[in-house]
């Protein structure tokens, strides 16, 4: 499990870095999407991994060890929603910049090459 998660985070983050270093705005937005998956899972994994132990306490007398850590989950939940909002903002800036400059290059103009 742990090795799979670690590799998954690595692959997504690496792909994300590659993409945000690319020159086209759409590549950048895809890169940010991938990076946010990676970072969300990374933060989530800080509570360690647990299978079949959702943090739903049906009775007051409980053993905390029997539940997954709820704190990173709460943080990641907000991160997912905020990530959605920033993606939307970035998207609008992306299409606005393309309309304004006529180019979809991240610098707003085609490179001289």
């Amino acid at each position, binding site marked *: 499990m742990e090795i799979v998660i670690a590799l998954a985070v690595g*692959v997504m983050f690496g*792909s994300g*870095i*590659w993409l945000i270093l690319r020159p086209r705005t*759409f590549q950048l937005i895809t890169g940010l999407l991938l990076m946010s998956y990676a970072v969300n899972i990374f933060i989530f994994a800080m509570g360690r*991994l647990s299978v079949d132990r959702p943090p739903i306490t049906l009775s007051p007398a409980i053993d905390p060890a029997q539940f997954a850590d*709820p704190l990173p989950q709460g943080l990641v939940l907000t991160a997912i929603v905020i990530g959605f909002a*920033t993606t*939307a903002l970035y998207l609008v800036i992306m299409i606005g910049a393309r309309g304004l400059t006529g180019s979809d290059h991240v*610098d707003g103009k085609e490179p001289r090459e």
Partner: protein
Amino acid sequence: MRDGAAPGTGSHRRPRDGTPITHATEANARKKKEFSSIDHVLARDLLWYLLRSVPPAFRHGPMLLASLVFVPFIASLIAALMPQDARNRESWLAAGVAVYGLVVVASLYPAISEGTVLREEFAWLPAQGLHFLLRMDGLAWVFILLVLAIGLLVVLYARYYMSPDDPVPRFFSFLLAFMGSMLGVVLSGNLVQLVVFWELTSLTSFLLIGYWHHRADARRGARMAFTVTATGGLCLLAGVLVLGHIVGSYDLDIVLAAGDLIRADDLYLTALVLIALGALTKSAQFPFHFWLPHAMAAPTPVSSYLHSATMVKAGVFLLVRLWPALSGTPEWTWIIAGAGVCTLLIGAFIAIFQHDLKGLLAYSTISHLGLITVLIGIGTPLAMVAAIFHILNHATFKASLFMAAGIIDHETGTRDMRILGGLRQKLPITATLAIVASAAMAGVPLLNGFLSKEMFFAETLHVGGDRNWWMSTAAIAMGMFSVAYSLRFISIFFGKPAGELPRDPHEPPRWMRFPVELLVLTCLVVGMVPAISIGPVLDLAVSASLREQTPHYDLATWHGWNLPLLMSVIALLGGIALYAVLRWRFNLRERTRAPLLSHFNGAQAYETAMQSLTRAAEWLLRRLGTAKLQPQLFLMMLALLTLPLLLAGAPPEWTILPLEGFDPLFAGVWLIGGACAIAGAWMAKYHRLTALVLVGGTGIVTAATFLWLSAPDLALTQLMVETVTTVLILLGLRWLPPRIEASELQLTVSRTVWIRRTLHMIVAVAGGLALAALTYAVLVHPASDTIADFFLYNALSGGGGSNVVNVLLVDFRSFDTLGEVTVLAIVALTVYALLRRFRPAPDSAEMPPQQRHAFDPASRQSPAEQADSGYLLVAGIYLRLLLPFMGVISVYFFMRGHNLPGGGFVAGLIFAVAILVQYMLAGATWVETHITLRPHRWLGFGLLLACATGLGAWAFGHPFLTTHTAHLDLPLLGELHMPSAFLFDLGVFAVVVGTTMLMLVALAHQSLRAHKKPGEQAADAGLPAANGGML
């Protein structure tokens, strides 16, 4: 409340030994009521008895001082919300506030006249020893009287001055906010709090000067005034902090009693310079005087209120206030009096050569403020009496003069003295009033200006003693100049009538002139019977600020033949002669600039300084910044990789945990997820849609992982967000440039590009490996004790819900969530605002080729036709039938959220998706003619509900956002538990729905707009992007 009389140490150092000042003896200081003049006592007792009749409960109830400060601010909010043309209601509101304040002030007179210091204290930052402290002594009382009384007159005047076309709510709102800030400055008993209100006066003054913001001079003047005074305010803050450091408290009473400690401290000079910078900038003292003439771009009521009577007096007020703590050293005299002398000469001299009525008054104000500053700088008790006296006198005659100038401007349409002339015939009453006020300004006997100027002359004589006459010479010169400019001012009423004026002048409305009449009457009364009229008021302020050093002084019009009188006569005659020479020998009427001094232009220096600052910033940006994003991001990623390696210590010992085991299915799922990520990265340049689908695949795998690893809430949210994000990006794709054709592809890349890609690849691989290694390293270590246990133990018992994640979001950490939904709303509105201005690139403005293809049955139908009768009919009807079910599912997930996976976020996203699929199938036009959606209202309602739930806790005396769970027994439904967090979650739900809808719909409407013909688009250009049914 405690007695304001300071401990009778009497140890204040006197500024100069041998100065002939009649100090009150210790015994006299105790019995402050003893005065020589019988009139004086009579008048005070009369006032006192009148005010004794006020009911005692009202005399000093709790919060009375606080209400003085906060009522104007509340009224300011109300004023801002009134309709554009509510001139009368606005004026009544503002006048009501001033009258309320005056009643409170009057009711406090008995207590203040007994020498008590009223204090009201509220906890602000108790841990830091900071309290919100309001404190009223005699000095504050007199200043408040000044602020409120002149405020009332200005409001009355402004009612007639402002044109019906001016947006009056903004004017009165700012004016009231200014009044509140000014009262805050005067009433502050805590130095830090005083600075806060001080900066508020700068801010409101900025808004008022720039009131006519379509005018470039108003914007420039406002910016200049704000930059200078607010910078001074920052210096003052620093000075106050130093003072607080020396004394160990910011409490004004403690600071004022610690004068000897402060003066002996090494940091005394630092504190003094910083505080002086604050006061001198505010009171427009040399070399910071240049902002005041430019502030004359403000409407005249503002000039007459802020820039003559109140705000510019805040600087000198502060100096008087801190006089017991800071004065009595050579540094004090040199800095304060030095600046004052320069100011009074420069201001008075330049004033003679102004041809703008308000410009003349502005320079005259600068000069009179200089006079007050000199007196404070001299710092002897008698000089302080003169300073306070002149503050009051100057406010009266200068406010009336500004108002008179405003009337002339209002009636003739110009303020240019080169054009104006002979106005005596058309405006006889205004002319008379202005002439009397000018005489007060010039210091003509029997008017109030004469009395304080006489005192000033007397003080300059004391400073120099028998040998040094420089100060007196300067004073006489200033007196001559002020006579000259007063003559210049009244010259517009004499001579032959002006030929062509923009307007034919008439006397102004009765009540527009009334404030001027009242103020001029005050000048006369104070000038003739000072002891009866102003005596008791002045006495209050003087005894409060000078305490046991209160000197004996005599307010009388006639002191016999003495040196100050001789100086007055010289100034008067010299001024007339100077004016005559300038007028007839040097053609004063046509001169445009002052001789000599026009080269020392403070405003020019200011502009140059601002410009070089901008240029320096640009230079720095050119040197350090780059417009290219790629190198920036590359460096950032490189730093991300290397910096942690440099900073990290030795890795901890590796102890391998009993792992959760290896599940081949899980590995298989991630094989797909990882492949999707890499393939997406590969495809993103040439195949955008494919890349989007692939990245979506990774997203789904991420959601599955959350579900697998005991995070059902996260899985749900991720799934819904994935859906919405994909739709969002799909909507955006069509605005990107068309796909690059294969023939254009450069299959051989240049060497530089190849090197760059290789470098990027290395960084990407290294970054991925580093994060993978870090993740693994963390996962194989046992978790240290976290606060997780607290939430797990308390969710059910304390939060009333078994879904700990949801309880965490809406209860334990609800303040975070409130912040988060606010961010969501802000982002949604930003997206909406950005799209309003969106103009597509020419090549994507047309309908995309896929939609125009002749074989597509849809290309011949509009989206609405497709859904109603076309080939999407079946699917469309199914989806319409599904809408209520999706709504129910959304409600279901919302309701169970507190106990089982679900909650406001998830339910909101589900609801948004339910609407979204209708849009996708039937098109925006069809949906919006059938359903009325108002995303803005959802946003607003959601935020309001979330805040109101939080505030509701206050009503029960709990901290913000405390939750309470109510258990209801309902028929049929059984026991229902209703935590207040439920309402909070409902707010979250509404915000999420509003955000998602607003963003997606605004984006979707771009396609509709682009399809319109050019003519239609032009007609629609002013409307918001997402118009139609959603608004």
